[in-house]
Every structure is written in structure tokens, then in C-alpha cells.
């Protein structure tokens, strides 16, 4: 994967065990802060019906979609069962000088 690190948000803008939306180049992304205080990033729209995951609920490793409660592991992107059947794309992240960067490749 080519490097294309993009500044997504301030690290302290995302609460622990929560998610925040971020747009870049007309695409939506979701930035997660895990209970272990690590950052992760995925595509921002649910693979079921393209709903913003940033309105969903983070529980441990799981993001639950606000529309039909479909669940993904946001660390791996794995869809955890109906009604979501297609995995989420994930992106590498790093924190530098209090900012969260994601590698869009």
C-alpha cells in the first residue's frame, strides 16, 4: 500500500470507545478510539445500506450500525452477521503531535 497519510482529526476529539466521522476527497471515513486507547479507521458508510457509521455505537471491538444494528469488528473490518454480509475496508492509523492520521494509500 502506497503511503498517503491524511490528517483526520485531533486525537482528543474522539472519546474512548467511540467513533467520529471524517470526510476527504468526497469519501466518508470513520475514526475509532478503542477502550485500549488505540485509533483505527474504516470506510465511513455501512456496507449494507450506506448509512454513516459515525452515528453508531462502539462496544469493545465492535461498531454497531445505527440503521439496522449490523455489526463490524472495526479493527479488522469483519462483518459479524446479518444484516451486514460485506466486510468494511480498514485503513492504517498513527498519532503524531496529538493528531490522528490515516493512510488512504
Amino acid at each position, binding site marked *: 500500500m502506497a503511503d498517503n497519510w491524511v490528517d483526520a482529526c485531533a486525537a482528543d476529539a474522539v472519546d474512548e470507545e467511540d467513533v467520529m466521522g471524517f470526510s476527504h476527497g468526497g469519501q466518508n471515513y470513520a475514526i475509532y478510539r478503542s477502550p485500549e486507547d488505540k485509533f483505527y479507521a474504516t470506510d465511513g458508510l455501512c456496507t449494507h445500506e450506506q448509512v454513516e457509521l459515525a452515528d453508531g*455505537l462502539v462496544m469493545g471491538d465492535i461498531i*454497531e450500525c*445505527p*440503521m439496522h444494528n449490523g455489526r463490524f469488528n472495526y479493527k479488522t473490518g469483519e462483518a459479524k452477521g446479518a*444484516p451486514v454480509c460485506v466486510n468494511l475496508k480498514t485503513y492504517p492509523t498513527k498519532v503524531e503531535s496529538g493528531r490522528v492520521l490515516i493512510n488512504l494509500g
Partner: protein
Amino acid sequence: MPMKRDYSLVGPENAAAVSKGLANAQWYRCAVPRKQMKELMQRSDAAAIRDTILWVLLFILFAAGATYFWGTWICVPFFIGYGVLYGSSSDSRWHECGHGTAFKTRWLNDLVYKVACFMIMRDPEVWRWSHTRHHTDTIIVGRDPEIAVQRPPSLWKVALYFFGWPTAYVALKKLVIHSAGRLLPDEATWVPESEWPKVYRDARIFLAIHIAAVVAAIAFHSWLPVMFVGPLPLMYGAWLGVYFGLTQHIGLAEDVLDHRLCARTVYMNPIFRFLYLNMNYHVEHHMFPMVPYHALPKLHQAIKADTPTPCASTIEAYFGEILPALWRQRNDPGYTIRRPLPSSATPYAATSGPAVAVPAE
């Protein structure tokens, strides 16, 4: 003769809804700060475990009483209680566990979901997907498979729902079709093909249990097994669930993108709310399906300034809105109740047609 719309999901109304931008559309949502919404969405096993233990204990109590007094008139109230649990309260357990919000622990949701599906004779996968569509396209004609009463309404058909007859008959027919490894054409439009084997598997398991109850009744020369398991308890117990369920959308708008116009919140007493798992907060549930049933009263408080004043009771809902609307829609299917909003609310858009409301920031 009033014009009848085509409610089929594979008919012309489906394409019409898509072309009008009513399918998979953006709906109006009341503004709730993210922090508050996160609190409301929090899952907890405690409330659901408490309510499920009580539910199971009531089943045991009513089944024991019905068996003990079997053959005398005293068994009747016990069967009424058992039937309401079996044929009515299973609906809300199916619903809430289908959303995955009742329990925090996933396998508990799945377990109660399957048990409730069996009782209410709904295929777990088909209904999971049908309900998904109901939430995407709520009361959009040609898109929503769960529109309970089509216009112009047949009052006979509505009355029969209370006896669970059409429900049990259609459910048995589908059980046999699914067990034979087939789906109905409209079901195939909303259930992904990858899930079809699960439909067939569950139908075969459910059918085997139904057959086992009949075999037990024959073997023991007793009606009791089929009074407790299968279509009979669904039929003699469905009435209260239907009474609750018809309050959700009847008489309200079709083809709008604002749940305040197409869903109804009704205040209910604590016994009803236990049986119905707070689904009387129906506008709230549709607008924010992530909020578990035990938090719906709090969500109601959070958004009530932006939603229509709820009906004060089921009696008010039926006599003030539902029955008059059903009566009038027999000859005027376009008749729609538009519930007034408090002055603090974001107004409905000028018409009750599609895309009428402006989403909150």
C-alpha cells in the same frame, strides 16, 4: 369502488417508490446531542435478564395452573394468561432481540429471538430481513413488507387478526414451503441468497417441533401438548399483541420520510409495557432503532418537544384515531391522520408527500 394500491414488493409500486426517491431515503431525525444518544444506546443485560426471568416464571405459572385445572372452567384464565405470553408477548421479544438491543450479550439475544420466532411462527431469517426493510422504508408502499393493513382496509381481515387465524395459516403454509427448500418470490427480493440455507434449516427444525407436539398429543391422548405448543396457543393468544401492534402505524401517512407522520406513540400501563417491551414508544423506536427498549421512555423525554403528543391510552388511540380512520378509509383510502406537533417542534413540511421534512442538524 375505491382504488386499491398494489402493496406487492414485486409490483409497479416498487419501481414508483424508487423513482420518487422514497426507497432507502434520508429520513427526518430529531436532534439529540451525541453524548446523550451514546448514553441512551448503551446496552445492559440486567433489564432484559430480569424481564426474561419474569417472563419464563409467568409461563411456568400459567402452564402449571392450566394443566392442574384442565377439564374444569378454572383452567380458562390460566390459558388466557399462557396464550397472551405465547401469542402476544413473543412478538415484542422477537422484535427487540431481532434488533439485537434487548441484551448486551449477543447469544442471549439470539436465543430469545429464536424461541420467540418459534412461538409467533416467524422464520428467523426471513423476518429479520423483512424487518430490516420495514426500518429502511417504513410504510412506503411497494417497499415495506410489514404494512399491517392495506388500503382500503378490509375490516373483516383486521378482525380476524385478533384470532390469529390468517397469521397461523399463512405461517404454516410458509413453514412447509421453506422446509421444502423454497422462498416466496417477494421474500427472495429482501433476503440475500447467502441466507437462504438458514431459512430452510430453521423451517425444518420448527416444523419438526410442531409435528412432535402433534405426535405427543396423539400418543398421550391429550390436547395439552398442542394447547401449549404450536399454532393453537398463537391463535388463542394473539389478540393482545394485535391490539398493541395496530397502534403502530394504522391511519397514518404512507410514502413519507418522517416517522412523526407514519408512526404513533401511545402511553401504556406498566403491564402492557412489560408485555410489549416499550414498543408503544414507536416514533422513538423508528427514529432511533439503536436505543434498547428499556431506554425508550428516556428517549421519549429527550425528543418529545419535537414529536406529536402521544395518545394518552390505547383506548384513546383506537376510538380517537384508529377505528374512525379504518372506517373512513374503506371508501376514502387516501384519508390520513396528521397528528399535531407541539409549537416547539420542527414543523412537518408543507405536504405529507415524499421528502417532506428537513433533517435536523
